[in-house]
């Protein structure tokens, strides 16, 4: 037992410097969900700790040449998406890989490189009402740490109502409200009309004084 402990300590001491400052044995997977009327974008930033780098490299570097080619990066992005599940109102959506970027091998070995995966779930334009999206990340759950959040939508007619997660944030359910498209234009018109009325009243009062 003592020998194992001493070996582990020696291994830690032999690690490159960043290991002392950053996660060693965790695979941090950060997911952000962006909601729109006709698509759901998924952003995954995955950062392997130094002790995970060997595993991740074996998943990425398929020809074991010590370099990650664009084709290998894309293959890994597709593998991550195959391990993920995205549902809208209980109906599974197809996730399409839109971009993947991988850091250098050295950065991953140092535990500081982040793999960026971007994907989109295409949907038919949705009608107004309450919607719910569920995203589940099943990519290498052993040793992984997750963060999952919905972003405030760029569409002012979409409001996140609630976010529910499991304790590890591997799974997130986002309930959101979609208001009728064009409703905001009507609102703008009403506000503008109100302001112009205020102006007319102000001026007519000024004229009487």
């Amino acid at each position, binding site marked *: 037992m003592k020998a194992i402990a001493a070996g582990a300590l020696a291994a830690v*001491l*032999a*690690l*490159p*410097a*960043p290991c*002392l*400052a*950053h*996660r060693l044995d*965790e695979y*941090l997977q*950060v997911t*952000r969900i962006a909601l729109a009327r006709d698509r759901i974008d998924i952003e995954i*930033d995955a950062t392997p700790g130094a002790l995970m780098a060997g595993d991740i490299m074996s998943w990425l570097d398929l020809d074991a040449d010590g370099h990650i080619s664009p084709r290998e990066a894309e293959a890994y992005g597709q593998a991550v998406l195959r391990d993920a599940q995205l549902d809208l109102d209980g109906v599974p959506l197809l996730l399409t890989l839109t971009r993947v970027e991988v*850091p*250098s091998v*050295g*950065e991953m070995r*140092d535990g*500081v*490189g*982040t793999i960026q995966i971007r994907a989109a779930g295409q949907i038919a334009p949705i009608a107004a009402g309450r919607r719910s999206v569920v995203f589940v990340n099943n990519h290498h759950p052993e040793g992984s*740490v997750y*963060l999952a*959040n*919905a*972003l*405030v939508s760029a569409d002012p007619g979409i409001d*996140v109502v609630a*976010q529910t*997660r*499991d*304790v*590890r*944030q591997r799974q997130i359910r*986002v309930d959101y409200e979609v208001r009728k498209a064009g409703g905001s*234009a009507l609102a*703008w*018109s009403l*506000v*503008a009309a109100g*302001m*112009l009325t*205020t*102006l007319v009243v*102000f*001026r007519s009062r000024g004229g009487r004084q």
Partner: protein
Amino acid sequence: MSHRMIFTAAVIICLAAVGLVVPGRGSRGILEAQRPTATADATQRAVAAAEAFLATLDSAKRAKANIDLDAKTRTVWSNLPTGVAMQVGATERNGLKLGDMTPAQEKAALALVASTLSTEGFRKAMAIVDADQLLETRSAPTRSATTRTRFGRAEYYVAILGKPSATDRWMIQFGGHHLAINVTLAARQTVLTPTHTGTQPASYTMDGKTIRPLGSENDKAFGLINALSAEQQKQAILGFEVRNLVLGPGSDGKTIAPEGIRASAFTPAQRTMLLDLAHEWVAILGDEAATAKMNEIRAGIADTYFAWAGPTTNGKGAYFRIQGPAVLIEYAPQGAGDTNIDHIHTIYRDPTNDYADKLVRR
């Protein structure tokens, strides 16, 4: 003409009618009065400090220390140590590092950094640098010969983005491992967001004194969570682990949906505690700019959320977040269990005005 244009025109006409905006005078009036402003003196001091620093440099170093300010250069900052590609892809920080400066140049560089910060803010930044120097001392003997990663005081960079000016936008950056001070000066306003602070170790001894660079942030947060009633804690405490920053370096321009308890449900005393906690980040900046920013946060307090994840006993590691209309603050111990209190990351953002974008849009 779009509805938005009609509305905007109506607002301008109405404001002009009641004398709040006087066209032709640079839109001064109530809009100007509401701007959080630093004094012209503070801006002038920063300009003078920048010019003094640049005057100590030869042309090659000056070209490195003073670069253009644009949408890309301003995002080059990170929590990571030197030698590692940052979240935005850059491989080196902007500017000139302390390790490449002469003592006179370093003195002028740090005077520039101090010119827009409060005494306490500058002390906090340098305490983070000292912690990293300790990390360097501890890690250097076991560092692999091939690694390019470096920690320590020599690896902190000072940069001037844009031309130092009392009227136009420019930036001062001071950063290294666990530190990214981004000060944007735009006419009479000084903006600190986005800024990252962190520390490892979280507590150390120097000259016989215990230093905790982010100790007040930690203690005030535990004070607040324990000042909440059981019912309030139920709303504030998230039912899941949060093991890192959600909107850390590289996440500019994103806003997450708020969670936790809304401060409209707080007592006045609890709101004061929340503001006092936010003040730890805001007051890195000099007094007048910090006061203006606190007024802005105070104005949005009813729509500000406080979220917590982790134990509520001080001495354990816990994540927390403050999110309001003009502020986002996250504090995230790194790692899990009882070993996570010695390594902290934080972020301070303004979803409406990072890099003083709101002012420039006006």
